[in-house]
């Protein structure tokens, strides 16, 4: 398994190799020139500041919504669990475009912060809600019986139990914000990713972009190490047996109508406003036409590429996640952390790195579907690793050991014992990667087979000539298609009680 996981980690490091090769291309002089510009320092502060602010806000909203929809008697809480996960289906470029065209003055930090927060808090909400639902109430009850008030018991026992899920979710938010281009470019907030794109566009020189990419990489590593440290050595599977049961719902009384404002407000900002805006574009347009055959082909293109991307990524993530959950050694941690790197890099960097390597070493596959699928793997591996890691942590290793001691061979143990235990995590990871692949744009444009269309490339090509009306239908369809795996993900919250 170590070998398998190691191989996956190596794959994830392809963009790193590319960045180092490109950055070192012209010697160290130009590298220093780019690094010591005072703009680079400012970029650093802005990128990390935005990432920190969005991560903190997402954690607060994600945990609050999870608590409200899982533990409280919020009216229609099951339905709100689904709605609260839906913003994942909304591409940041569609939402950001709707925002700038509705509120032209909402640019810079406030705009980027708002749009990225309402779109990415579900990364925290989903794992936290699932963990909250599974949480054994006996621990909280024990704290209460020993004299803690409800608030204190929540902070000391419940929140602490939620920490691993909240931390992995926040990590995904943080890395996503560092790599996002759609929102920061449309809302005009200079981050590493935006300047890397600008640099390709303005100087046609790949070196400064590569140097900035390397710097982004260094900070990503620091964030990854810090998050790994925060995990500590606590164990989260239950040692004994004991029947699982659900805790009673918290009665919010009158204030539940006030509490309802949270999911309603977030859904309004993340879903209703962008959707209403795209429908308005369509209605205002006189030239927009519905080319159903075309859109259908694009939808099929999206489905095929994303399904392969999700399948391959989930399979590759299993050994990495299992290794990290079971063997808590430094080597295992390094392998698991490397899987996260691609997620923090701008899509264009990952895409160009694959152009660089496949054209040289796998030329016959270049601009064929497998390479695009491979790009999805590099970009979205951590989404699958984190879900599977979550389930693997809760599966008691003793079960594997018993099966082994009874004479089962490792593969057979994996199939009959481990696989069923981590299956929910694998399913969730697959769904998450699938819907993220649907929204992906830069790698799809550069690496897809020539002439291959997806819904996201349709949206892009329509908006690039100002035909906003034509962008509406593929954009709506994209959200609808992505809503299906999102719905499956949120259903997992309520079915997670065995």
């Amino acid at each position, binding site marked *: 398994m170590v070998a398998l996981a190691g191989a996956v980690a190596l794959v994830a490091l392809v963009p790193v190799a590319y960045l180092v090769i490109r950055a070192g291309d012209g010697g160290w002089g130009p590298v220093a020139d780019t690094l010591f510009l005072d703009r680079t320092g400012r970029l650093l502060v802005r990128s990390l500041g935005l990432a920190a602010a969005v991560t903190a806000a997402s954690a607060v909203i994600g945990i609050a919504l999870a608590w409200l929809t899982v533990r409280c008697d919020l009216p229609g809480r099951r339905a709100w669990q689904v709605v609260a996960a839906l913003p994942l289906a909304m591409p940041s470029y569609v939402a950001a475009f709707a925002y700038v065209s509705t509120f032209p003055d909402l*640019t810079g930090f406030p705009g980027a912060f708002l749009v990225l927060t309402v779109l990415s808090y579900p990364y925290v909400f989903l794992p936290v809600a699932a963990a909250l639902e599974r949480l054994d109430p006996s621990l909280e009850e024990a704290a209460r019986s020993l004299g803690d008030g409800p608030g204190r018991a929540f902070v000391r026992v419940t929140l602490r139990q939620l920490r691993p899920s909240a931390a992995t979710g926040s990590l995904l938010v943080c890395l996503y914000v560092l790599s996002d281009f759609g929102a920061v470019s449309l809302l005009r907030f200079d981050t590493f990713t935006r300047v890397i794109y600008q640099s390709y566009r*303005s100087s046609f020189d790949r070196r400064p972009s590569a140097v900035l990419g390397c710097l982004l990489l260094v900070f990503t590593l620091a964030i990854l190490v810090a998050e790994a440290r925060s995990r500590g050595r606590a164990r989260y599977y239950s040692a004994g047996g004991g029947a699982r049961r659900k805790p009673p719902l918290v009665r919010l009384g009158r204030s539940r109508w006030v509490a309802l404002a949270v999911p309603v407000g977030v859904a309004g900002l993340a879903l209703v406003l962008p959707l209403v805006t795209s429908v308005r574009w369509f209605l205002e347009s006189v030239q927009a036409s519905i080319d159903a055959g075309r859109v259908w082909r694009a939808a099929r293109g999206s489905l095929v590429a994303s399904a392969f991307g999700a*399948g391959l990524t989930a399979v590759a993530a299993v050994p990495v996640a299992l290794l990290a959950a079971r063997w808590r050694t430094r080597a295992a941690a390094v392998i698991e952390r490397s899987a996260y790197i691609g997620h923090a890099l701008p899509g264009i960097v990952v895409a*160009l790195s694959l152009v660089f390597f496949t054209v040289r070493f796998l030329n016959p596959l270049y601009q064929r579907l497998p390479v695009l699928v491979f790009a999805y793997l590099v970009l979205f591996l951590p989404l699958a690793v984190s879900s599977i890691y979550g389930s693997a942590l809760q599966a008691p290793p003793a079960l594997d050991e018993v099966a082994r001691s009874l004479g089962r061979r490792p593969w057979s143990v994996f199939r009959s014992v481990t696989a069923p235990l981590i299956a929910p995590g694998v399913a969730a990871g697959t769904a998450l990667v699938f819907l993220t692949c649907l929204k992906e744009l830069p790698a799809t*444009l550069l690496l897809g087979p020539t002439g291959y269309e997806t819904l996201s*490339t349709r949206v892009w090509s329509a908006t690039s000539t100002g*035909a906003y*009306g034509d962008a509406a239908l593929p954009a709506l369809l994209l959200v609808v298609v992505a809503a299906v795996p999102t719905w499956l993900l949120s259903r997992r919250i309520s079915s997670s009680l065995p």
Partner: protein
Amino acid sequence: MRSRRLLAALFVPLLATGLAACSSGDEGLTLYSGRAEVQVKPILEEFTKATGIKVTARYGASAELAAQIAEEGSRTRADVFWAQDAGALGSVDRHGLFGAVPAEALATVDPRFRADDGNWIGISGRARVIVYDSRKLQPADLPTSVFQLTDPKWKGRIGIAPTNGSFQAFVTAMTIEVGEARTRDWLNGIRANEPKTFNDNALIVKAANDGQVDVGLVNHYYLFQLGAEIGPDKLVARNHFTAAGDPGSLVNVAGVGILKTTKKAADAGRFVQYLLSNEAQQHFAERNFEYPLVPGISPVNGLVPLNQVQGPAIDLSDLGDLEHTLDLLRQVGLL
């Protein structure tokens, strides 16, 4: 077992479609197009109909495609690169990846719209203009030079897109024409006039049409695109050309180059020739509202003829490096 069958039922058709997408037949010419599909596709179809040569296009942003070609180097799949601006063509040429454009094609286009080394050629032109709200302004109220826009009377009334490539190319042209000091003064003056900034030209034109800005610095054809999108009767914004020689009426081109490594040089040459044919040039004029670059074909109604639009006398290849312009824009605080 049932779940396995279900999985198989799901994945077999997927695999089949996936493999089908992998299969390669004879794809004819491969075109990397930095121009949008709606602007290009009808021309490609006409070309295939006329010559029997198939063209497969790969669409993307010009700069990203230029980076991709540079990364692919001699192993590029592209036979022809069609870029939205001269800068992207110049960059591929500097990497030494273009071969020569056939001489008879070069001869049809004014030297100011093609590369000096003959390795890329302009196909259609776009002029910088001042778009204005005709409810608030008459042509007589408008400046004859962009330099007059720093007058305080324009405070809060201007729309610009400083992050957009076409604005940056225009500032580069200004720097080449009047020097950095005067360009910096102009940028500072514009900034002092508190312009509204937008992401692209199309949004500025829309804002002028909706009464959110009075004037905006854009490319000429966005007005016509908006007219096509919302209906010409709802169009109240108008284009205004500045006087001859003013950087405010820079004419940039979208153009093509043939990759040195192509194995289909003859077909690629025919394709370039076709883009300069009367039908194709007519198409650019009528459907994309651009300036045809072949003499004798007139642009759409309401456009000043190209020979009367005299922007600054600069070499378009010099617009390739915008890094310096970006620094300037950053120092001034517009970026």
